[in-house]
């Protein structure tokens, strides 16, 4: 039966808490850091974002690890949120994917209820709440870490937000990378980043950062030319969110490999 008295809220997380608390993980059962926790869950590795002249690129590799093994080769870490924003997640895969899904539903729910899009800052703030709601997990060392990127139509440029495990939200105006290979990717981006890069220069920089992350970090995967699995590269501009087709990504990496061979 419909319940109209619940009219007021535009917060889907609140609706779920009231109606279906069972859909939200109850992590209070886990108490204190437990090193004996069976390691049979997947962890996503490297994701990054980079601002360029027309917008922002958000990207990630495709591998998830299960302990010291490959858990999944084709996992998706970049998710479109609305017409002008996307999220990339690193950390414990299950809750990461659930956070991305819940975030996407929430932003769309708000848009439909209110009849207008939630502002980019509004989305970034809301994501803090979602990350913070995983605090019980974070205390176990099971961390969900997103990068949120979007094109802000009001000021006409791409923006990046990073988060810490307790929901702290910080804006980066150039680039950022997290996950097990995040530090390696950041090192590469640090050398390659220039203000007002063109799209193709920016895509090449992102491809190289992902390559270096895969090279240095055993948990991160580069392009898999045998299975035809390629990292996800997504651009967000005034026109919207566009994931690069696999063959374009393949081409970027082939060029990168031939550049590396020459040096």
């Amino acid at each position, binding site marked *: 039966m419909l319940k*109209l008295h*619940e009219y007021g809220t535009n917060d889907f997380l609140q609706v779920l808490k009231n109606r279906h608390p069972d859909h939200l993980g109850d992590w209070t059962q886990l108490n204190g850091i437990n090193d004996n926790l069976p390691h049979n869950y997947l962890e996503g590795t490297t994701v990054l974002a980079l601002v360029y002249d027309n917008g922002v690129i958000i990207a990630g590799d495709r591998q998830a690890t299960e302990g010291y093994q490959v858990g999944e080769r084709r996992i998706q870490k970049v998710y479109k949120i609305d017409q002008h924003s996307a999220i990339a997640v690193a950390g414990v895969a299950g809750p990461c994917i659930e956070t991305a899904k819940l975030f996407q539903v929430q932003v769309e729910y708000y848009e439909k209820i209110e009849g207008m899009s939630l502002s980019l800052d509004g989305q970034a703030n809301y994501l803090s709440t979602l990350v913070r709601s995983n605090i019980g997990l974070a205390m176990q060392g099971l961390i969900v870490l997103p990068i949120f990127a979007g094109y802000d139509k009001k000021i006409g440029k791409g923006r990046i937000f990073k988060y810490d495990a307790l929901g702290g939200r910080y804006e980066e105006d150039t680039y950022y990378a997290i996950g097990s290979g995040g530090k390696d990717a950041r090192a590469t981006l640090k050398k390659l980043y220039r203000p007002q890069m063109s799209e193709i220069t920016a895509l090449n920089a992102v491809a190289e950062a992902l390559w270096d992350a895969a090279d240095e970090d055993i948990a991160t995967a580069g392009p898999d030319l045998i299975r035809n699995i390629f990292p996800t590269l997504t651009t967000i501009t005034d026109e919207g969110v566009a994931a690069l087709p696999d063959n374009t990504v393949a081409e970027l990496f082939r060029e990168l490999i031939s550049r590396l061979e020459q040096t």
Partner: protein
Amino acid sequence: MSTPYYVSPEQIWEDKRDFVRRGIEQAKEVVVLAYKNGLLMVAENPRRTTYKISEIYDKIALASTGRIAEYEALRVAGIRESEIKGYTYFREDVTGKWLTNLYSQYIGSISQTWDAKPLEIELLVCEIDADPSVGNQIYYIDFDGTYREEENFAVIGGRAEAIVEILREDYSSDLELSAALQLASQTFEKVESEESEPYQITPQTIEVACLDVTAGRRKFRRFSIEEITEILSHAS
């Protein structure tokens, strides 16, 4: 001791029906009709923020006439229940028939509470599906919760019957978007003109949206005044 009064159930229903009809008679119409790429929804509505047609879920829209406040509560409840169902199971599991039943049960329960004011609204739940065996679906829900499936087109509002008569004559399947919009606007003009001066529909006086089977996941699209002007200019 006062005599307890008796009102027959027939009388209660009659009164409620009259009460709602008086409200709906005032209401401007909403026309929904199948066109080449899905369903086109057109309402006579000069206002730009209070809508009569709204997106509910990926391939479902809701159109209504009558009291805006009552429609608004049903719209939001529909979005909420759809999102909960889609989140719990899978997005494709949210269907127009399921939503129609939900509305029907709720609206019916209000109208059957004898001392409650019945909702003064009529609803059209619209759904499209790329699968031709499912196709377009239009469900009409009355104030008492009864519903029926409509084919090709449906109209709600004060002069719904007159518009249905016109559409029976003029409607043909596989209309282009521009032709379908022109047909809908003409029906508004025809029913109004019969009673008063020649009546002119302009892009400023109608609200237009569609469910487009060729769109991505979200099939609903609302047209701006500029887009309505553009579409109408393509009609012959």
